[in-house]
C-alpha cells in the first residue's frame, strides 16, 4: 500500500493506490505517493478530489483527471465523482511519501540550504565521460 498522508481517507487510498502519472509509472510511484491528492471528501454519495500538479506543464493532466474520476466513481458508495486541479497552492517535494522521496532525486528548497556549494560538493553526481566513437 502507498505511504500516504493521513488526511487521505481509506476509500480514496483504495481507489488511487495504483493510479500513476505516466512520468512515475516505471518507478512505481502512485499519485498518492507523489502527494498529488490535496483532499478527498465524500458527502453523501458525492466524492470530490482536489489535485495539485507538480507542474503546470503536465501533459497528462487531462488523462489523469479522467482516470482518477473513473476510479473514485467505481468505489462502493460513490454515486458521483468530481476531480479538480487546484492552483492556489504549489506542489512541493515535501508532499512526497518517504518511498517516493527515496526513489526520486530532487534538489532541496533553496530556503533549506545554507551553503549551496557545500551541498553540491556532498551530493554531486558523476559526470558523463566524453566518448567520441560510436559503441561497437
Amino acid at each position, binding site marked *: 500500500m502507498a505511504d500516504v498522508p493521513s488526511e487521505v481517507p481509506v476509500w480514496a487510498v483504495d481507489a488511487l493506490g495504483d493510479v500513476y502519472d*505516466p*512520468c512515475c509509472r516505471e518507478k512505481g510511484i502512485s499519485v498518492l505517493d507523489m502527494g498529488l491528492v490535496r483532499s478527498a471528501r465524500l458527502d453523501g454519495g458525492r466524492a470530490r478530489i482536489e489535485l495539485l500538479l*507538480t*507542474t*503546470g*506543464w*503536465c*501533459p*497528462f493532466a487531462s488523462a489523469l483527471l479522467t482516470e482518477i474520476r473513473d476510479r473514485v466513481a467505481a468505489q462502493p458508495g460513490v454515486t458521483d465523482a468530481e476531480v479538480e486541479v487546484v*492552483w492556489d*497552492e*504549489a506542489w*512541493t517535494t515535501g508532499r512526497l511519501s518517504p518511498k517516493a522521496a527515496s526513489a526520486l*532525486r*530532487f*534538489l532541496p*528548497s*533553496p*530556503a533549506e*540550504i545554507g551553503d*549551496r556549494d557545500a551541498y*553540491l560538493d556532498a551530493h*554531486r*553526481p558523476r*559526470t*558523463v*565521460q*566524453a*566518448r*567520441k*566513437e*560510436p*559503441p561497437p
Partner: protein
Amino acid sequence: MIDDAFVFDGVAHVFNFEKKNAFGTPGEMFSNHLYAFHNALTPDDKPKLPPEEFLREWTVPDIHRMVYEESDTDMLVAMPLPLTDLYHDGLSPWERCADLAARDPDRTIFWGSVNPLEGRRALNLMERQVGEFGARAFKFYNVRYDYGSPYPWRMDDPQVAFPIFEKAQQLGVNLIGVHKGVPLGPQPIEHTQTWDMDGAAANFPDLNFVIFHVGLPFLDETCWQLIRYPNLYASLAATINFVVRAPRMFAEILGKLLFWCGEDKIVYGSEAPIFHPQWALRAFMDFQIPQDL
C-alpha cells in the same frame, strides 16, 4: 528596454497553423496544444485570441510588429521549427525566419534548423542556412513522426547527433538549442527528457547547448545538469508565461534556477506569437520571489 533592462528575446516563431499545412491528426493536435497554452496562460485582462485568429498563417510583419512595435523587446531570435513530419512547411519555415531576420539584421538573429535523421541532406542544409542566410545557431527537436510513427533521436547519439554538432563547429557555430520537456501533441514523453544532454555536453565542451522550456517538468534534473556542465544553459521560453497565472509555481521554478544554476545560465524567450511578449515582460519585471522561498 523595459525600465533599465535590455531585452533579448531568445525565441519567436513565424507559425503557419493553417489546417491544410498539418499532416493529419498529429499535426492538428500539436497546433491545438499550442492554442491551449495561449488560452490558458494569457491573463484574463489581456487579449485572448479566438481559435480562428490564432490558428492561422502568421506573417513576418505580424511577428515583427508584435515583438518590436508592441513590446519593449530590443533584440530577437527568429527561430524556425523543423517539424516537416507534422507540417508541410515545418510549422515555422526557416526561409521565413531568415526573412524576418533580414529585415533587421542588427536586431534579429537567425537560427537554422534541420532534421538530423536526414543525414547528408541535413548537413547540406546546415551549410546553406549558415553560408547564404547567416544562421548563428541551430534548433533541434528529438521526436519525429515520419511515416506516422514517432522516430526519436538522442542528443548523445554518436551516429545521428554528433555529425550535426561537428558540422556546426566546422561552420563556426557554437550554439545549439533543443526542445526538452513539454510534449506537444502525441509525443512520447520519454524522448523529451533531458538525460541525453550529459553526453552531448561532455562530448562537445566547445559547443553551448540551450535546454528550452528549462526541461519542464524535469526541472531538478535540468538543474543538476546545468550545475555540472558549464556549456549547458536553460531557456525560460513558455515557462515565463506562468508568471501571472501561477506565480507561486513560477517563483519555485525561477528560485531553483537562480539558486542552483545562477542568472548567467538562464535565457529569456517570449515564444511570440503564442504569447504576446509585453504582458509577461511587464509582469516579470514587477515580480518578486516570496521571502519564504
